[in-house]
């Protein structure tokens, strides 16, 4: 098992280099001059522009810029962004906020998605199943920004149950409303996945055998249907954690959450290569770790899967 984990961690290196190189190149290839954009309508003296350009190494060729970025990264000095702020410090501000949001959203999806999915799957074709299926279809069909604004208006403004915007006061409580919005869409997928998996496993031979042994219905469901049904769901949830950590640009925008999505969006607008690539670097790590966790969980859920061979 240890060898497997080690091998997986070593795989990070080529993945990491590949993704950062690609993202760095795409930012480099963006049209427009980021320094000119900093000054808006004013035309700064050429000397100021040149100084700034050389300060951020924008006058260097692509390979040199990328090399300098790597060098900075390995000396744990991510450099400054175009406003002069250290990038490391701003990452340390945004990532915890997005992590909280992601965990809350993931918990909502996992708990409600699995619970509703199991009930729907056990009584396939029943009224609960039909209702939940139609509702989940609606949730999938409505775009996030519509859902976001409606929730903000109804629960934030009209009912006043939550703060309509998060702003600087990001904590578990204030992030709950955006987390619900963020979690709803994947909740629908988790629900459908669980439902399909449960209703398939219900007809498995070993479930019938379990009933024939004299086990009560709850024991059959908990012991023989649920665990076997969770295997595909766990895979989906793990992949989803990575996506959630990437920040939800739309949701964070609507609720003014100072998270990764917002930061990334602003950096893209300003063509700030170092900031974008720094965020992506962290995300690559998050993805790799999330996938590794999924694989380990997978082996725990299904003893037939062994990674040593």
């Amino acid at each position, binding site marked *: 098992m240890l060898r497997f984990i080690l091998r997986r961690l070593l795989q990070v290196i080529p993945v990491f280099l590949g993704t950062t190189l690609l993202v760095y190149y795409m930012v480099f290839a963006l049209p427009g001059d980021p320094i000119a954009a900093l000054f808006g309508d004013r035309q700064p003296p050429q000397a100021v522009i040149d100084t700034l350009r050389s300060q951020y190494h924008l006058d260097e060729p692509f390979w040199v810029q990328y090399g300098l970025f790597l060098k900075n990264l390995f000396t744990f000095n991510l450099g400054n962004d175009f406003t002069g702020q250290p990038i490391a410090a701003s990452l340390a501000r945004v990532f915890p906020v997005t992590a909280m949001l992601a965990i809350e959203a993931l918990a909502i999806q996992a708990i409600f998605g699995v619970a509703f999915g199991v009930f729907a799957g056990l009584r396939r074709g029943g009224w609960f199943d039909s209702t939940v299926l139609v509702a989940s279809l609606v949730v999938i069909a409505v775009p996030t920004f519509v859902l976001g604004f409606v929730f903000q208006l109804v629960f934030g403004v009209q009912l006043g149950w939550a703060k309509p915007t998060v702003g600087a006061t990001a904590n578990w409580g204030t992030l709950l409303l955006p987390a619900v919005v963020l979690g709803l869409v994947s909740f629908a997928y988790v629900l459908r996945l669980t439902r399909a998996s449960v209703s398939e496993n219900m*007809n*498995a*031979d*070993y*479930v*019938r*055998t*379990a*009933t*024939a*042994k*004299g*086990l*009560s*219905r709850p*024991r059959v469901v908990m*012991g*023989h249907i649920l*665990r*076997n049904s969770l295997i595909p769901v766990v895979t989906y949830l793990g992949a989803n954690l990575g996506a959630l950590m990437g920040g939800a640009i739309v949701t964070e925008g609507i609720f003014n959450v100072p998270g990764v999505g917002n930061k990334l969006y602003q950096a893209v607008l300003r063509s700030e290569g170092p900031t974008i690539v720094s965020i992506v670097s962290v995300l690559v790590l998050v993805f790799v770790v999330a996938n590794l966790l999924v694989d380990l969980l997978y082996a725990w*859920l*299904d*003893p*037939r899967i062994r990674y*040593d*061979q």
Partner: protein
Amino acid sequence: MTSLDIHIDEADSTGIKPLLEIRDLAITFKTGGGDVQAVRNAHLTIMPGETVAIVGESGSGKSTTALAAIGLLPNNGRVSGGQILLNGEDIAVASERRMIELRGNSIGMVPQDPMSNLNPVWKIGQQVRETLKANGRPSGPDDVAKVLSQAGLPDAHRRAKQYPHEFSGGMRQRALISIGLSCQPRLLIADEPTSALDVTVQRQILDHLETMTKDLGTSVLLITHDLGLAAERADKVVVMYQGRVVESGPSLELLRNPQHPYTRRLVESAPSLASRRIQAAKEQGIETSDLLAPAAEPVAADHILKIQDLRKVYKLRQGMGKSSDFAAVDGVSFDVMRGTTTAIVGESGSGKSTVAKMVLQLEKPTDGKILFDGVDTSLLKARELFKFRRRVQPIFQDPYGSLDPMYNIFRTIEEPLRVHKIGDAASREKKVRELLDQVALPQSTMQRYPNELSGGQRQRIAIARALALDPEVIICDEAVSALDVLVQAQVLNLLAELQANLGLTYLFITHDLAVVRQIADHVCVMEKGKLVETGSTDSVFESPQQDYTKALLNAIPGAKLMLPPEVA
């Protein structure tokens, strides 16, 4: 009221009350096309300690009847009439709560397929333990081990900590038997308990089951498609056909003197009871002597296949970069004469399928030669190999897995012709029609898809596809093992007929010695990669030389039953 009187009468005359009594049972399934009656007017009585077998083909309602007796009908099925009396209590109308009490404690079950009936994610011990616990019995590690070792699992304490995938099929079935009998039920329902296992394992398991149920005084309701097995193991046999009980009675009596036409057909085609090779021409009623036994007068020593000292070694990984050699096939030599059938027999793991794969050039031999028509096949270049494949065609075991579900039947049979660029569209269509005629399927089958056909029909399609290229040799890898006895008999007859008409050579891979007797001229018995015995079918069956062959022959269910020759 009348049924109650009969019940009392029976009890009075013997002094013992029946344990299970099924009266006028009707079972209905709700399907998309309306209600379907799967079982009607079924009658059955099991006395305490008695073993009763229900025999029939798939779809006859035998499993459905058994499932109703433990209240486990699928959701769309229900008992629509009659009674199922367990000790006088009608369990057809019992509540689910009452059924949970009865299951395990009073009625145990041993299911059919040991591969799918244990939950893959729980340890064996846990699956035994929860049974004991649910039925209010002591369930400590020692109790679990005791239950497992009673079913003949050695080293039970350690085995209890293993997962199902670490068990062989036979061991899993032992685990399932231990679960079924763990709470000492009065009635055990055994639904084809050994049909997925090798014959020798099957025999051990059935022997053990018999001993255990005798000791415990358990009644057994045995469900099987194999009349020979039923007759050997049960006191009484009930024959079901299309949802009805067509005949029932004491086993030997029923076997020796079958009354119903269906029972007669079953007795005639039961592979374990038939004693002679199928004579295709005779089946057709043609009495021409050269068609009668094509195998009897082969062209002198025309060996189409010569296998010489064949070896196949696999490397087994043992972790940490180490590996050990495993000889799946070890020094096998035999010849196959043109126009005859040679069977390779053995249990799973004996290497028989590996030999077939090497002959088909799907695996490369580690050592040894395969001469096809005098040419060493290992020296064939890509183009020659392509031509070789035209002359040697396979038919595989699983007619469900070996046909592409997205291809219709026409495309399935036409594909080899297209691949080998034979004829044009019109002539290929003509050929496909001819092939369907040859395998006795209507030409309209062309437009259908595999999932619309039965197992037997699919295997006919597989045969038609194999015949498309006019091959000389057909390799049948367990080609009839997945089929019901009657269908199996039909397919075997078809193969014999095709051999007579087309002069085909068959290499038949099978674990079923009963099938061998029906189709083969020569037999090669394999054990653990080695050829242990070879000879003509008659000589091997009448005077087997090796202990292993004797064990295999003894394991054929019903082999020892004495039948008058006119029935067999």
